[in-house]
């Protein structure tokens, strides 16, 4: 059930995408997300779909894994679609009782659905092919210029990597506590919304306590190894761009330029 959320989980494979510099992948993910909002026409989405499909193919991660990540947002997706479908003013298409589906509504709803699903799949590709460690490295390097504005770049990157690392741990913990409470006769499935919410208490209280305990332990372990933040800290394996990274930047630029052109001319 909850194990199906793939966001923040790494899938080991030997592929070009896995080997790319994390900075490239971060930039590409950001670029891809922006491109989804740049394009407004169906041709643009087809371009995005092709780009995404090629990347997924190259990454050697089974497509099933990406779709699993989608399950988590089905609910949000439904709300978005329903709201857009019924609440967008414009030319009426179908009228059901007091609700009207407009032509514009149907169009926005469909676009929103595509956008959101591409967004999730796109970011899953990044997290599935990049280890949390290299992701942090990449983030830190990319955000380094912000240091001029006194942004604690290293600390932010460290926090993000810890957060990412904790997702699977907490999921496992949730699963375990859930089972333990089910063994004591707890029921998480039946009943109305209020009953269901109340049934979450035996799950959430131990989960929070366990999260705090783990955070405490981790902090202690880091301090025991003299961690003091990013000041004067060097890397064992500093990031370096290679040939394939330059090519990837080229491809990304071409895709992005294409999207802008589609927006402007089509």
């Amino acid at each position: 059930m909850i194990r199906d959320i793939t966001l923040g989980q790494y899938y080991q494979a030997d592929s070009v995408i896995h080997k790319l510099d994390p900075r490239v992948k971060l930039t590409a993910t950001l670029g891809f997300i922006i491109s989804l909002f740049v394009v407004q026409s169906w041709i643009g989405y087809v371009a995005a779909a092709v780009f995404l499909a090629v990347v997924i193919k190259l990454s050697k991660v089974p497509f099933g894994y990406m779709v699993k990540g989608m399950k988590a947002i089905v609910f949000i997706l439904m709300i978005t679609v329903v709201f857009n479908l019924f609440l967008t003013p414009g030319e009426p298409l179908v009228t059901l009782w007091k609700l009207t589906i407009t032509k514009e509504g149907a169009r926005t709803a469909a676009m929103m659905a595509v956008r959101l699903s591409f967004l999730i799949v796109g970011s899953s590709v990044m997290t599935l092919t990049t280890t949390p460690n290299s992701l942090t490295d990449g983030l830190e390097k990319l955000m380094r210029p912000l240091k001029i504005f006194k942004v604690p770049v290293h600390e932010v990157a460290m926090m993000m990597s810890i957060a990412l690392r904790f997702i699977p741990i907490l999921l496992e913990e949730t699963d375990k506590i859930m089972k333990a409470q089910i063994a004591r006769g707890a029921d998480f499935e039946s009943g109305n919304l209020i009953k269901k919410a109340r049934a979450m208490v035996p799950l959430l209280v131990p989960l929070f306590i366990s999260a705090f305990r783990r955070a405490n332990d981790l902090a202690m372990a880091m301090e025991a190894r003299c961690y003091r933040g990013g000041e004067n800290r060097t890397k064992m394996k500093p990031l370096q761009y290679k040939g394939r990274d330059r090519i990837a930047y080229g491809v990304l630029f071409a895709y992005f330029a294409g999207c802008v052109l589609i927006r402007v001319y089509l």
Partner: protein
Amino acid sequence: MSLILDHVNYIYGGDTALAVHALKDINLVIPDGQFIGLIGHTGSGKSTLVQHLNGLIKPTSGSIYYNGEDIHAQDYDKKKLRSKVGLVFQYPEHQLFEIDVFKDVCFGPKNLGLSRQETELRAYAALKQVGLEDEYFYQSPFDLSGGQKRRVAIAGVLAMKPEILILDEPTAGLDPKGRDEILDQIAQLKEETGITVILVSHSMEDVAKYVERIIVMNQGSILYDDVPREVFKHYKELEQVGLAAPQVTYIMQALAGRGIPVRTDVTTIEEARQEICSKFLQK
């Protein structure tokens, strides 16, 4: 009245490349009132197996019968099964959540839909069974010591009055004194109520003293399933799968190896003491 596992297989991770065959063709009969030790190295599948026994995990293939009924049949009442087959997880103190000890123990019986009076009676009896003093009953469970928390958690399952009690590594992370106390209490409980107890552990030393039957698991299969003295005869094979026989077995084997005619199939220190004394007194 028994629990039967018939050709149970379980595969983790479905059809991905990461699939793990966690249980391979497990056949077991667990009759009423037995005290069983389930032993295996880390990752041998013992935790997966016990989660099958109360229906938390559905086997990939094979069936499980409780009192003759298939527990994965459409109309089978899983909740009732879980009250009859009580499972205490590893580090059970991590599941405590209520504002005081007593309320937490009430959680299980309350879920069974019992009356308030019955719930509280059971909770009180369960807390007494694990030997927790009254003064702790209305404290926050989070203020207790590790050993006390674990007793509260075990009481939480006992309060459901299970007919089979399964404890997954009940002594993990406890000091020797806490370990002996918990195990002694479990043995005493078994003595008083006559329920079936399954003790999951990776330490032979822990279980040898108490159980009447040992099931040894290795890589998802059952390696041995016999009375302790028979299982410990295979002490060399046990070492190969990352386990060990109790220390007395080694002492007796070493004595026998030096030509002293002692029995080598003793399982507890007390037995060994008597055996050695009798041999020396004969001389």
